């Protein structure tokens, strides 16, 4: 064995193309080249612009929850671009492969659906929601940071290391073909030798460790860091959903970590947890995986529910309808989510009565979910609805989510599931929940809180255009899949038989391309808005006539968030303060503020984790040892750091705060009808 373990020049994706210059290899090499060029371009830009130092001291070593949140969102968006491209390639392959092999090998297609699912769940959805919670939640509860700022940065570093592993697998070696759920014995050493499944195992393990830490951090923050008067039942609904998601993360990520590590023991050390034969039990894996996997569904959707609650309330200019109901419903969903995992394998051959119990439990979740949908509808009743991008997406979410709910109730019935399990009907169902529910929720959140994070709005017209491309794209991409599934089309098929599938597949491909176009317009919107940020600036901090504490801050907020910790005595405190005319009153005294000092520990741990994982994938044992030693050294070194905080003098806080407030309080309040124009500088005229 060479010093580089199993790694060899022939493992480079480009070597594959030289050996076999087929379309299949060309697609793989193009993807690899794209990843390499993207990385090189990023390095060149950073160097030419001289951005290395600000990147390092302002971002990578920052423990500011707002910056960590923004970095999570950026990570999610970058990975989203890759996963959309993969979806389009898969649909194109299926179009080209009606009754014939098409242009991709079956092996390559298997890698595509595996990376698409793994990326979308672990490296798009999780980073987006973790980033949004990171940014928003401490502001909403009147805190200056999360409880464990360094752990927060470590979580991000671990997640980024997992994402980097996935990107490296584009260029070096192959990825797993076992799907995002990685069922053994197919993913065991006997049936999937080589590096592919190992890439999957370590990428997912790193991500799950990061999410476990995040869950603990958020839950403790919400329990311990609320400002005076912020009782649990005065918290904004988004914070409530963040709390429920955090609790789910704490309990649900562990079974996944355990399952992937047990699978690793099977593969590396000849264990037989999940092998066929020798006492292995593949059904245990299904149980462990979905013991994580089903709560995971609600980890993903609950923060989006929180976003929708803020959006419907703010853009109707009205208090949330049924706040208590929504809190109870969220908690019900969180608890029930641990009681339904078996519905992912009704067809595994267990007794009918077991299926019936889990089927009924699954259907119970429909009750709180239905309550929520109507609570949001009633939130708009007696309001003044403004059709900004988040609300447009929200209304579309309401309409499509009930269709996903209908198909979810259908699938909850074992009787129906026997006929739809593993089919494209199932694929349509979960995309129906995750795209309008989670993904559009995250994009609504980005539109909603972007001005808070950066001090300027995103261009409204381009936002509407991308929203409509997504909305139309989703319908085209996934409604046909319901039909295809009922017609006998299975998921994960590199080719479908000839027959009636063609036209519906063509519509689905069109839909995938529309979603990709919508994302391109979104990127264009970001670029345009940055270029014209003066025109879109909202320095006074309240562009949407917001109701909760984060809108009481300048945009972007100072590092310490609140000059003086606020005291609240009701829900929607900022709305009440605006109506009372005291929203921009100056504090009567200032104090020194202690904020966490920057630390290089998190990037060091992330780099070490990547080295360990890459070494494990390729059996480069010295690299594994080196990575572990480096991680240990970083932790030991950190324990000798005594100055973990730095003090911001009261005079500086005073200067910044009064500088902003003296302008904001005399600024011309913007009426809501001018909300999407340059007249909106972030000072809202209260609606009576």
């Amino acid at each position: 064995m060479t010093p580089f373990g199993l790694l060899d020049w022939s493992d480079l994706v480009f070597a594959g193309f030289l050996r076999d210059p087929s379309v299949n290899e060309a697609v793989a090499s193009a993807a690899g080249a794209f990843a390499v060029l993207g990385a090189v371009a990023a390095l060149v830009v950073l160097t030419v612009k001289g951005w290395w130092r600000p990147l390092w001291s302002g971002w990578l070593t920052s423990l500011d929850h707002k910056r960590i949140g923004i970095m999570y969102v950026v990570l999610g968006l970058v990975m989203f671009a890759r996963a959309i491209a993969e979806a389009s390639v898969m649909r194109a392959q299926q179009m080209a492969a009606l009754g014939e092999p098409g242009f991709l090998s079956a092996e390559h297609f298997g890698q595509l659906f595996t990376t698409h699912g793994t990326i979308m769940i672990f490296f798009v959805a999780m980073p987006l929601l973790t980033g949004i919670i990171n940014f928003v939640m401490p502001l909403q509860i009147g805190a200056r940071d999360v409880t464990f700022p360094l752990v927060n940065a470590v979580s991000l570093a671990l997640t980024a290391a997992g994402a980097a592993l996935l990107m490296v697998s584009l260029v070096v070696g192959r990825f797993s073909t076992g799907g995002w759920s990685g069922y053994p014995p197919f993913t065991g050493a006997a049936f999937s030798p080589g590096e592919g499944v190992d890439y999957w195992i370590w990428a997912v393990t790193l991500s799950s460790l990061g999410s476990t830490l995040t869950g603990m951090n958020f839950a403790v923050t919400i329990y311990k860091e609320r400002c005076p008067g912020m009782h649990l039942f005065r918290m904004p609904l988004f914070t409530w959903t963040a709390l429920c998601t955090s609790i789910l993360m704490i309990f649900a990520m562990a079974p996944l970590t355990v399952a992937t590590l047990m699978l690793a023991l099977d593969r590396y050390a000849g264990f037989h947890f999940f092998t066929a034969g020798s006492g292995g039990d593949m059904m245990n894996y299904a149980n462990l995986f979905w013991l994580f996997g089903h709560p995971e569904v609600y980890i993903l959707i609950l923060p989006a529910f929180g976003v929708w609650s803020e959006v419907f309330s703010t853009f109707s200019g009205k208090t949330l309808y049924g706040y208590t109901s929504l809190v109870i419903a969220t908690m019900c969903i969180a608890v029930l989510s641990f009681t339904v995992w078996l519905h992912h394998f009704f067809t595994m051959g267990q007794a009918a009565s077991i299926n019936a119990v889990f089927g009924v439990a699954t259907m119970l979740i429909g009750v709180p979910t239905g309550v929520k949908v109507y609570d949001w509808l009633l939130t708009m009743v007696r309001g003044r609805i403004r059709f900004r991008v988040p609300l447009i997406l929200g209304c579309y979410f309401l309409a499509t989510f009930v269709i996903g709910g209908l198909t979810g109730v259908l699938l909850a019935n074992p009787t129906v599931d026997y006929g739809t399990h593993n089919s494209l009907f199932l694929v349509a169902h979960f995309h129906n929940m995750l795209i309008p529910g989670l993904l559009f929720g995250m994009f609504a959140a980005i539109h909603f809180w972007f001005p808070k994070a950066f001090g300027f709005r995103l261009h409204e017209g381009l936002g509407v255009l991308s929203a409509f491309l997504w909305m139309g794209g989703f319908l085209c991409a996934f409604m046909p899949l319901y039909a295809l599934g009922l017609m006998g089309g299975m998921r994960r098929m590199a080719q479908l038989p000839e027959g009636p599938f063609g036209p519906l597949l063509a519509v689905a491909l069109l839909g995938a391309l529309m979603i990709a176009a919508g994302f391109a317009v979104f990127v264009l919107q970001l670029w345009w808005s940055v270029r014209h940020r003066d025109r879109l600036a909202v320095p006074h901090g309240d562009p949407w006539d917001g109701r909760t504490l984060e809108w009481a801050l300048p945009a972007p907020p100072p590092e310490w968030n609140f000059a003086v910790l606020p005291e609240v005595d009701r829900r929607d405190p900022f709305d009440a303060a605006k109506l009372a005319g005291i929203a921009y009153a100056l504090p009567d005294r200032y104090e020194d503020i202690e904020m966490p000092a920057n630390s290089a520990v998190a990037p060091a741990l992330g780099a070490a984790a990547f080295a360990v994982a890459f070494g494990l994938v390729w059996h480069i044992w010295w690299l594994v040892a080196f990575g572990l030693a480096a991680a240990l050294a970083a932790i030991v070194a950190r324990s000798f750091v005594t100055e973990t905080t730095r003090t911001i003098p009261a005079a500086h806080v005073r200067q910044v705060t009064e500088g902003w407030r003296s302008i904001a309080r005399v600024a011309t309040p913007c009426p809501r009808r001018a909300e999407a124009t340059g007249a909106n500088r972030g000072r809202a005229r209260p609606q009576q």
Partner: protein
Amino acid sequence: MRLIPCLPVLLAASLAGPAVAETGTQAGFLWAAGPIAEAQRAHFLSIIGWMSVVIVPLFVALPVVLWRYRAGGPGAFRPDWGNSPLGEAVLWGVPALLVAVLGWNLWTETLRMDPYAPLGPDPLVIDVVTWNWGFVFVHGAAGVAEVDRLTIPAGRPVTLRMTSDSVMQSVFIPRLAGQLYAMPGMVTELNLAADGPGTFTGRNSQYNGPGFATQSFDVIALPAGEYDARIAQLAAMEGTLDAAGFDALKGDDAARPQGFGAVSDGFLAEIVGRYADPRMAGMVH
């Protein structure tokens, strides 16, 4: 926003797609050809009917609310309105009642449609062994086997006893029976019947590698007389299906025989036994 009222139409159109398409053998349980799939279809449609109780009102109310309460619209503005006891009762009560009804249906149907329950007395027992990537069907009573093709007598209940000689697979005959996993070292049972003669597609629905997309078989339901003729035809074939013959099957797809005139005793048990833990010998059964 014009999209939203169009949604039900679009959904209906996409669901109607298969109806206008050529159905052929590639179809799901909506084109039921046996009692199990018929029950699935009836259950499926009844759920859609019940669920419309909560779905239709939303589709009606959403455009009305958006129109009436748009900024500058005719609806009254009451920014503090966030609660109504009657509303809460309806919001929780209606879905709870609906789930009670649907839950009752789920419970009774799930127990009635247990895949292990034979569909009548004296079912025809057929052993199924899957591998990467194919199926062999053993007609035990007749002592014959066929490959990637399942012949059954129309109208008679059939019991499939299934195992896998590779990874987890899912044997799926959408128009007749639904699906159940076949797993190495284990035997699962799927019961089905065909109402009348016909050809139906069966396949593995659980991804198991490069040959997955084309791992399918034809189910051919024949009238009783023709079924007997087919069995006689199989009995005339050369070769005995035993463990060694089975392993030879897996190699060459092109040279795969269509059937075996004889089957070694206890073939299914032998394949299942390949995955028994030797240390556990004598501790099970």
